């Protein structure tokens, strides 16, 4: 059949219109879909990147804060982390390298120099940073204690050490700090406001069962004297439903010479470590940084590893005072300059070089003891032989603070 020309063109035009319409819609759907997927992909990727970046930024900012707090000795800093209270911070230390970061995120910061004593995990709207100098007998480094207001410290013990710790931390014997309270604006280093204090409560010896974790994130029981915590003893009733990792204890011996860590396992206290020597000499008016470190350290590994960092500094600092050949009893450094500044046969020169004991001999012994201590930790991760440092440091301290001062000589440090 022959279709008239005018009818043919009309039919053809109608088909073309239909094809074009369908083509247009398909084109729109495909192009639009591709563009939408492209932007959605960018948004999702940016979200992940931003979270990772935020985590990294937080950790690096915290590192700067830790550095600043670490050098501000005897100062407490309360850091408002309410924007991060849904994140969990983790702290660990192995082979003299401490690491901290956010749980579940890759970025961690490593530090081989600054000893940081903290629980293994923290999740809090307010971090507390406190720094104390560690002297053996001259200042070796600053210890940085990191904790939070929702980490409760239950103190048992009635000696001066316990009372001093409670007082120094602004602890209260009436009631613990309520971690649910929103943090007040943090001032930089003031401890006068009761809102800004450690969560420390002291208990009498018969109040063991009164321990109540409440809404705290975790609890550390500090037993000074060892009368409360022993292996396989039952945990207090309120801790029976607490996750095991949230309850730990440390027993400081009555003479403050050792620290033994305990952890909760199936409602019993299990000994976590052998007694760890506390290596310190503490003049009457100063705080025992090494003992405090045992209270704040979340685990025996954290304690020993960070003490290792402190011990690693002793030879370097000693060589500044005593000279690089002090291992052979050859004085150098500041000691040699002091010796040279006094005439022969003077009392001061005698105290440095000839008397029994004298500063050179004591420094030599101290230096060699520090090297032995470092070797032992590297080999066995224990600090048993580091106890020699207590004796050498005490002798040095006596000579510097008593002998030299009484004879009117310039002190070494």
């Amino acid at each position: 059949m022959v279709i008239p020309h005018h009818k043919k063109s009309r039919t053809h035009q109608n088909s073309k219109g239909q094809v074009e319409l369908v083509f247009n819609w398909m084109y729109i759907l495909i192009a639009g879909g591709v563009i939408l997927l492209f932007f959605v992909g960018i948004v999702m990727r940016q979200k992940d990147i931003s979270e990772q970046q935020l985590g990294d930024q937080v950790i690096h900012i915290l590192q700067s804060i830790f550095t600043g707090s670490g050098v501000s000795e005897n100062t407490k800093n309360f850091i408002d982390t309410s924007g991060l209270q849904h994140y969990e911070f983790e702290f660990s230390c192995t082979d003299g390298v401490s690491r901290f970061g956010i749980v579940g995120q890759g970025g961690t910061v490593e530090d081989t120099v600054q000893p940081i004593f903290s629980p293994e995990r923290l999740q809090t709207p307010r971090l507390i940073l406190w720094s104390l100098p560690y002297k053996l007998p001259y200042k070796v480094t600053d210890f940085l204690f990191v904790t939070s207001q929702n980490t409760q410290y239950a103190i048992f013990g009635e000696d001066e050490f316990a009372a001093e710790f409670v007082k120094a931390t602004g602890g209260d014997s009436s009631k613990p700090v309520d971690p649910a309270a929103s943090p007040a604006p943090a001032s930089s280093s003031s401890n006068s406001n009761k809102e800004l204090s450690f969560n420390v409560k002291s208990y009498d010896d018969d109040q063991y069962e009164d321990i109540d974790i409440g809404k705290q994130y975790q609890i550390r029981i500090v037993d000074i004297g060892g009368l409360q915590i022993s292996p396989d003893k039952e945990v207090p009733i309120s801790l029976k439903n607490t996750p095991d990792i949230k309850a730990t204890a440390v027993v400081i011996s009555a003479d403050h010479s050792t620290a033994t860590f305990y952890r909760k396992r199936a409602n019993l206290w299990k000994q976590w470590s052998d007694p760890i020597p506390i290596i310190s000499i503490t003049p009457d008016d100063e705080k025992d940084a090494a003992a405090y470190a045992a209270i704040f350290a979340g685990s025996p590994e954290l304690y020993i590893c960070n003490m290792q960092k402190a011990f690693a500094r002793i030879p370097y600092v000693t060589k500044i005072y005593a000279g690089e050949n002090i291992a052979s009893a050859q004085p150098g450094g500041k000691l040699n300059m002091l010796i040279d500044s006094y005439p022969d046969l003077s009392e001061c020169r005698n105290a440095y070089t000839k008397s029994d004991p004298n500063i050179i001999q004591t420094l030599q012994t101290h230096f060699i003891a520090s090297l032995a201590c470092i070797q032992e930790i590297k080999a066995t991760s224990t600090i048993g032989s580091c106890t020699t440092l207590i004796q050498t440091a005490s002798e040095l301290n006596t000579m510097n603070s008593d002998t030299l001062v009484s004879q009117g000589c310039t002190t070494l440090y």
Partner: protein
Amino acid sequence: MKLFPINRKAQHMTETIAVLFIFFVLVAFGLIFYFKWHEGAIKEEQTQARASRAMDTTLRVLFLPELMCTRGDAVPEDNCVDMMKVRSLIGQDIPTIPPNPAPILDPSQSYFMRNQQYYYDVFGVAKVVLHNLDNSENIVLYDKSLSPDPTKQIIYEPTYFIVALRDIDDSTHQSKYGFGYLEVGVYGEVIQ
């Protein structure tokens, strides 16, 4: 009349293509703008990271037991450098009479440089210089720069802190305090 509809359809297709072309050109501009901004943001972050590192290193130097003054029972003195320790660090017993001309002492002799495997963790890629204004002495205590790279420019950002320089008077054995400053600078890289 018959020609007009055909031209309209072709024109409509051309318009669509033109619009899409312009759209993608705009998207390309947007992407170029974004990447340029991102590059700037990265440089800004690097600058901030460098500044943060400078602050950390400066704080560590100012409170380092190897440099700090102490008085009796190891009580520290702020903003003070013990010159006897400094002389011990550079391995020279420099006399208290000011040398003339003022020497710039070789950093390779410094104790910190000789024990770099430890002190690199303390200072990082940085330079620590003690300037004694009383005798115009400049003592380089530590200097560890980045390895040179022809594609990158090494930049150096110093920070200055004025400190008292404590020494012992030889005749009276009393403390005396000079005036000087610590220069603590960090090295960084910028892509050329």
